[in-house]
């Protein structure tokens, strides 16, 4: 939020997360190197470095891309999302190591500048079997680089959330480039199809997860509210909303979270000011609505972050008549105080 920035926002949970990432990467590299050495004794040290870092980066990339849809399908996965950016920066570091070692190994030993060599040593752009797959890897790495250097929240605020989000959506283009890089590269180096099969299985998994999550979301958005009275829509019985939790309603394309806090209902815009997290999937902690993604907080009665923070979201009017919740989907300006509705 907007109190003074720190380099890395570590807390206990994030530290545990980062230790797990480090432990996982270390174990993976160790396993990969030992298994390769057992299976293929002639393997060179350079090849070991290039291949262990590249496969680790691709593995992490799949985890990163799966976290979004998994969280939409099941809240159990939310802890993974909490610190996804550290996972992203870790992935970039290993991809950079792989790209760096490859450029060194294949391009730095001649007289040409290695970056020039990367693009001119193979110009079979219209051949499938001999395609310059390394250029694809280079552009993917460039996208990961731009994402990694803008991962601090400072960039979210100063490039504007829209630009930042767009930039980070390029991860899907980068993923596509990586898939092509691996497939086209492997057919030049290996005749074992196992790499291609693994990469395809990964792609099928990711596409399926995204489709499932998307269709779940669309079903929620399509729910029709037909009972209307003086601008208020009937949404649900009051007892359906658990204490300190919310239900999300999508009316006229506005996503609204109706929270229950100390026997009152309050409605605020469902979209978090940080990165658009679904506020209605969070809960109330210390009297504040807490975003499930990275923990930004808002007061239920006015949609404002508690001082010294300055984020604000829109608020809405709710009322309860005979135990039924009625919601007015016309937003009040961000941060407007609303009385809420008392549950009898």
């Amino acid at each position, binding site marked *: 939020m*907007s*109190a*003074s*920035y*720190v*380099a*890395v926002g570590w807390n206990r949970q994030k530290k545990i997360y980062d230790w797990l990432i480090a432990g996982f990467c270390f174990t993976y590299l160790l396993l990969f190197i030992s298994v390769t050495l057992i299976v293929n004794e002639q393997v060179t040290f350079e090849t070991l470095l290039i291949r262990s870092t590249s496969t680790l980066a691709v593995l992490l990339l799949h985890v990163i891309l799966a976290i979004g849809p998994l969280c939409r399908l099941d809240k159990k996965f939310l802890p993974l999302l909490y610190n996804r950016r550290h996972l992203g920066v870790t992935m970039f570091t290993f991809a950079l190591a792989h790209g760096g070692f490859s450029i060194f190994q294949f391009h730095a030993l001649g007289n040409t*500048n290695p*970056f*020039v060599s990367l*693009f*001119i040593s193979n110009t079979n752009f219209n051949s499938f079997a001999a395609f310059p797959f390394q250029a694809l890897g280079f552009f993917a790495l460039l996208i990961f680089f*731009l994402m990694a*250097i*803008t991962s*601090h929240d*400072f*960039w979210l*605020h*100063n*490039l504007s959330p829209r630009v930042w989000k767009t930039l980070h959506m390029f991860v899907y283009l980068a993923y596509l480039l990586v898939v092509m890089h691996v497939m086209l590269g492997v057919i030049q180096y290996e005749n074992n199809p196992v790499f291609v099969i693994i990469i395809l299985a990964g792609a099928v998994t990711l596409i399926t997860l995204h489709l499932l999550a998307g269709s779940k979301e669309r079903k929620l958005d399509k729910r029709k509210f037909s009972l209307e009275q003086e601008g208020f829509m009937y949404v649900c019985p009051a007892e359906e909303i658990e204490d300190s939790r919310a239900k999300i309603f999508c009316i006229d394309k506005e996503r609204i979270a109706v929270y229950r806090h100390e026997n009152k209902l309050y409605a605020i815009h469902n979209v978090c000011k940080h990165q658009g997290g679904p506020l209605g999937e969070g809960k109330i902690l210390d009297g504040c609505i807490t975003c499930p993604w990275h923990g930004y907080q808002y007061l239920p009665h006015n949609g404002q972050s508690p001082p010294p923070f300055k984020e604000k979201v829109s608020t809405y009017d709710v009322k309860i008549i005979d135990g039924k919740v009625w919601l007015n989907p016309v937003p009040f300006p961000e941060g407007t105080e609303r009385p809420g509705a008392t549950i009898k």
Partner: protein
Amino acid sequence: MIFITTILIIMALYLLAGLVFAIPFVIKGVAVIDEGARGSSWGFRLIIIPGVTVFWPVLLNKWLHASKIKRS
């Protein structure tokens, strides 16, 4: 070959300019354009340098605007 070399040289110059810009920016500029950076740690200022080196025109523009508003 000349084409790629030219692009690389232009890119290198652009990044070099960004690196030079980054020095006054992290010392003074950040706090002018973003109040969240007032009194922030050195770790934070160092960690944004790679991004400043790439996105410096955006930040320069913001910095110029911010100081114009202050003066008027």
